[in-house]
């Protein structure tokens, strides 16, 4: 049997914790695991693991830059930069300078709340999305400069999340308009285009899509929604296309009946387990159902952690490193770190 065991409960934020992000360059070769968390208290906190005790402590508080809720944070692939998206309509870029974080750039242009920020795999592009229904793509230039590459309009409502594909420069966005849109820079045109929309007509969600995540190879994606379902999508031949066009995504299966309230977050680990965080305060883990009969469900519930938090869970994220741990962020103002163990 598997169990999700609480390693630590982290306090410090004075308002709900919206999101957290693991520094992808930590957790290997003796480097302690580091993650950032962001909150309604307008701050971002940096948490670093003590290798002796295995526990996390807050090593920095990034404040007095954002004037409203910080809704999302994301590390660049190099781990040197941290991007934070705020309800103050800006995205701040922080650079780690000898343990201190300095705001080196502020990206403006969204008309109102920025909901999410995401780096592509190479760290050359940054995407942001907003309640103004737009998705912006920025190019990362030398000297911590950023340049607006494209302003994408296609969603008809608030865009909740943007996420780059793990290996391709393809961007995914999900929205209050119940759809997931796929964006690519098709060679012919001079700009980014929506190349696919995963909406209700093709087995998409029937309510707000809050988050999405890819498996390690990038050929499967899981999305979560207000409609109380998780949906898994797949595509063919990721990375093996030789100059061919975009490979479309198709619906694989829907996981329904497991959640009682809105699912706010979903994240797929390198080991193939995906975690969901929901408004019912629970964390659920799902895994391939290898014993599935023909036509049976492809994924099964591995476990459910009731009362993981006292309030809504806004974000769940698997860590990098040889032995991943799971971190969760909640409306109760705390972050918890979990270990998946067997007994």
């Amino acid at each position, binding site marked *: 049997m598997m169990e999700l065991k609480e390693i630590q409960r982290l306090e410090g934020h004075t308002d709900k914790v919206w999101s957290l992000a693991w520094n992808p360059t930590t957790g290997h070769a003796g480097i302690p695991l580091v993650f950032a968390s962001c909150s309604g208290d307008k701050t971002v906190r940096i948490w670093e693991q003590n290798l002796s005790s295995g526990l996390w402590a807050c090593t920095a508080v990034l404040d007095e830059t954002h004037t409203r809720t910080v809704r999302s944070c994301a590390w660049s692939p190099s781990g040197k930069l941290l991007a934070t998206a705020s309800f103050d309509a800006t995205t701040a870029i922080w650079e780690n300078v000898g343990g201190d974080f300095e705001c080196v750039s502020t990206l403006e*242009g969204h*008309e109102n709340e920025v909901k999410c920020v995401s780096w592509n795999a190479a760290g050359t592009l940054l995407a942001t999305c907003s309640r103004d229904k737009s998705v912006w793509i920025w190019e990362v230039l030398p000297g911590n400069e950023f*340049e*607006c590459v494209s*302003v994408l*309009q296609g969603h008809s409502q608030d865009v909740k999340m943007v996420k780059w594909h793990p290996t391709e420069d393809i961007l995914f966005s999900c929205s209050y308009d119940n759809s997931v849109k796929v964006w690519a820079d098709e060679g*012919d045109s001079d*700009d980014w285009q929506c190349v696919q929309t995963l909406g209700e007509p093709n087995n998409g969600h029937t309510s707000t899509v809050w988050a999405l995540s890819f498996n390690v190879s990038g050929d499967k994606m899981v999305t979560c929604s207000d409609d109380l379902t998780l949906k898994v999508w797949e595509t063919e031949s990721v990375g093996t296309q030789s100059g061919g066009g975009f490979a479309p995504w198709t619906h694989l299966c829907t996981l329904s009946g497991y959640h009682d309230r809105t699912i706010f977050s979903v994240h797929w680990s390198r080991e193939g387990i995906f975690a969901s965080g929901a408004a019912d305060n629970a964390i659920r883990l799902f895994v391939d159902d290898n014993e599935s009969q023909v036509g049976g469900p492809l994924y099964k519930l591995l476990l459910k952690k009731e009362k993981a938090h006292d309030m809504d869970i806004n974000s769940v994220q698997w860590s990098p490193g040889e032995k991943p741990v799971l971190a969760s962020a909640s409306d109760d103002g705390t972050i918890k770190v979990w270990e998946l163990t067997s007994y």
Partner: protein
Amino acid sequence: MSEKFSAALRIGDLNDYIAPSQACIVSLKGLKKNDKPEVSIANKQVNFEPVKISLKDCLACSGCVTSAETVMLEKQSLDEFLNNINSGKAVIVSLSPQSRASIAVHFGISPIQAFKKLTRFFKSLGVKAVFDTSCSRDLTLVESCVEFITRYRQNQLVDDERSKSSLPMIASACPGWICYAEKQLGSFVLPYISSVKSPQQTVGAIIKNYVCQELGLRPEEVYHVTVMPCYDKKLEAARDDFVFQFESHVEGLESEINMISEVDSVLTTGEVLELIQSKEVDFKSLEETPLDKILTNINEEGYLYGVHGSSGGYAETIFRYAAKTLFGRQIDDPLTFRNIRNSDFQEVTLEVEGKTVLKFALCYGFRNLQNIVRKLKNGKCDYHFLEIMACPSGCLNGGGQIKPNSGQSPKELSQLLESVYMENVLVASPFDNPIIKGLYDKWLEQPGSVKARRYMHTQYHPVEKSITSQLHNW
């Protein structure tokens, strides 16, 4: 919300979400608010007209307009246009060269053929005259050239940082850009924007202030419609800055104050096509009628003339004028614009003795606009002039233009429009335009004069966001 408006407007302006407790702050034009309650004890029953908040008032506000209102805006003009013809007003149409090119491409004819057929079409509906905004654009260009020289010289003279902020001068012809600048950018960017009116408003000012007088018409008897490539021009026409007070004297009656709009309504190219189709007119077979020459760039030999640059030619025209006036460099060859990041962001420079003395850019589309704005804010913008247009590819690609045929890509249509735009059109400096010269001689006196500033220049106003619209948090 409507997809027809430019990106700058869609992002910066129209929003389906109405914030709680959003108080209406729209001022009632021409009607001053009376805070004191009035109690009438008169025996007579008095019928008061209800005060109406019009769509244009809402669109100018930063508040609660939703996309439903934009549908109203899109639909109102065509019906209003036809109603005014039937009401006996003298209807005048001013046609933009971009719309002319779009219609020419659609029907596979030349711009001048399109112009003459459109003139026949409009007159068959009862329109009195059809003019050309290429003509008023030349006036806009002349005033812009003079304004740029003034700013440049001031910039060179004064060393303190505040006065240097008059450069770069930014073109003012794009209403999507103006609306965005006022609402989203505010005070920091407005001083950079040229104060010269756009060709649409310039032709309106000429017609309502000067042509009416020449023709013995009262401005309120004239209904002026423009045909434009984008929907945002409807917003421009509705600005308070472009409404003026005219006092008319009717014999035997007391003088009454009338509020006169320079442009009473705007039709997009697509709406005109819709009108042609609804009248079941065989447009290609339509007879070509002679053009009204009062405000039309057509020479004695029957050729259209104008400047290079399908979005108005501001950067190119001002560049040539500045090179000649400031540095004695007569440039007759085509200017070499260099792509900076994409084809919608190009620049041209003039070097004198190894030093760059003029640096101008074409900056089209919302993404490029954002990058320019970032540089302006960071103090890293070293351009002297910016021709900013909100639409990718510029005005020929405005949201109101006729859409590509099936099988035709937007890019192909864009390229075709570019080639047709200057087909059989002679290139001529706006300073050589005899109509413009005549307007200065008889009315405006000289470029940059007090009178020219009064009729041909305007102002911009930062829009303050209400506090309630910024309170939500989710």
